[in-house]
């Protein structure tokens, strides 16, 4: 879901800017995905069900299945570029790994646990159980992210919000989501422009200069983005915008083969859960 991908979006954008990519990357990936023609509500339900399956599963098999299958769906069925997919994945992965280490490791004055690192003043230690638990949590989180990535990388944001509107999620939340999503792009765009122009004036020549440049950009970024955001809002208002971003939606009917696909998918998930419970 977009809310999830905000930080990721920015990181991804910043990375790609170095390679001179267009900054509308996520939107364009979603737009170019072969899954874009699938019914958006279907994709939302499909991805949320997989997410719940991941989070509720007691073991690591369901998350592993979801991680692999979602990558396969996005890359093979959706024809999303492999490199973009894995690059995007590294962002949450970094957070997940940090979190996993934090949950597995403990600090104490006494030497306890299965693995101990003696640091003279104190001990860093962990147990087999804690390591397993951390890996399991990490895989669950990664599975959940994969499920949401399948949705984000195949569905333009206004289709998601329009589905949210249909199930009567409060307007305020939807409007905020849409505007934040839009303004993230503005911020990234402005940053890109400032960065390029600073670079062209030797703004990154040496560490000290780089720091100073970064500071100046950060300060200006806010002011310029605010001004731009104001202009964008004026443009919206001049076209009778009253708090809901309404667009003509292309009709994307639910196809029986997609439903069949989902049924097979969840039968596999349940089978995995069942086998694991039996063992």
């Amino acid at each position, binding site marked *: 879901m977009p809310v999830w991908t905000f930080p990721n979006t920015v990181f991804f954008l910043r990375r790609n800017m170095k390679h001179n990519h*267009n900054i509308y990357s996520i939107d364009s990936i979603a*737009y170019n995905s072969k899954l874009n023609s699938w019914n958006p509500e279907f994709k939302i339900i499909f991805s949320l069900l997989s997410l719940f399956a991941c989070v509720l599963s007691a073991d690591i098999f369901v998350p592993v299945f979801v991680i692999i299958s979602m990558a396969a769906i996005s890359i093979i069925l959706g024809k999303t570029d492999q490199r973009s997919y894995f690059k995007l994945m590294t962002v949450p992965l970094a957070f997940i790994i940090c979190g996993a280490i934090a949950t597995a490791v403990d600090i104490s004055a006494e030497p306890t646990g299965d693995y101990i690192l003696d640091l003279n003043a104190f001990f860093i230690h962990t147990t087999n159980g804690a390591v397993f638990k951390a890996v399991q949590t990490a895989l669950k989180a990664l599975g959940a992210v994969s499920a949401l990535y399948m949705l984000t990388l195949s569905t*333009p944001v206004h289709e998601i919000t329009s589905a949210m509107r249909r199930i009567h999620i409060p307007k305020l939340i939807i409007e905020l989501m849409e505007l934040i999503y839009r303004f993230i792009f503005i911020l990234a765009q402005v940053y890109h422009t400032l960065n390029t122009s600073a670079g062209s004036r030797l703004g990154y020549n040496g560490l000290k200069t780089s720091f100073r440049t970064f500071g100046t950009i950060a300060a200006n970024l806010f002011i310029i983005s605010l001004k731009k955001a104001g202009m964008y809002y*004026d*443009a919206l*208002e*001049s*076209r009778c915008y009253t708090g809901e971003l*309404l667009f*003509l939606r292309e009709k994307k009917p639910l196809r029986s083969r997609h439903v069949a696909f989902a049924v097979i998918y969840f039968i596999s998930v349940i089978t995995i859960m069942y086998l694991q419970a039996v063992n």
Partner: protein
Amino acid sequence: MKHTDTNIILSVKNLSYSYSEDRQALKNISLDIRRGERIAVVGSNGAGKSTFFLNLNGVLTPEHGEIVFEGNAITKKNLLELRKNVGIVFQDPDSQIIASTVMAEISFGPMNMRLPHDEVISRTLKAMEYMNITHLSSRPPHYLSGGEKKCVSIADIIAMTPQVFIFDEPTVGLDPVNACMLEDVLDRLYNEGKTILLSTHDVDLAYRWADRTVVFNEGEVIADDTPENVFADDNVLKKARLCRPSVYEIYGALREKGIIRSKKCPRSVGELKKLIDAI
């Protein structure tokens, strides 16, 4: 309050606006705009043209004074009526375009007007046809070329079928081919009886296209007359830091030498050529 002159579509009365306390952007402006007029708004940067336009469309609320559309003074209640009937094509298409496909983008205005679904579709298709961009309908607008983006941003407004079109510096950043396309669109809109306001720094365009030229300077209207009269007035030109259209200058020089006798100054290069050919 009913207006007596039914030919006046939009009337501005004693309009003042300021962004901050110490600087007034618009000072007591009064202007009557008649149906089917072609008005060029000229003036240096920061003269208040864009602010004036945003007031005309109701995005900005006048500090003093009022805007009267078809005899009805605009209040908060009928603000949307004003926005439906006065459309602004913004200078920078990027600040106007929001949707992820061209079709969705153009449908935004009609959707906000809460028109029936079929009507939205037919208007969107018509607007795309009008601007010759039907083949772009499912492309993401942010990837289009500058000229194509301009077409999309004009189609945005055409789909709303306003009475009054406002073009904020439409020729900025367009190549000659697209500038010709723009003038063609302006002519077509004029022939359909639309009222057009256009701000520009291109005095040649203002001179050959407009029926009436309004000169802004530091938030005030310092001249409001036919292009011939405005560009004949040295004081106005000096104050607004404008130069004369080239056709006008050449005509003046030729007349001074007694080469051309015609008393009527030609508007365009073509008309001037005819005069020269007739010698």
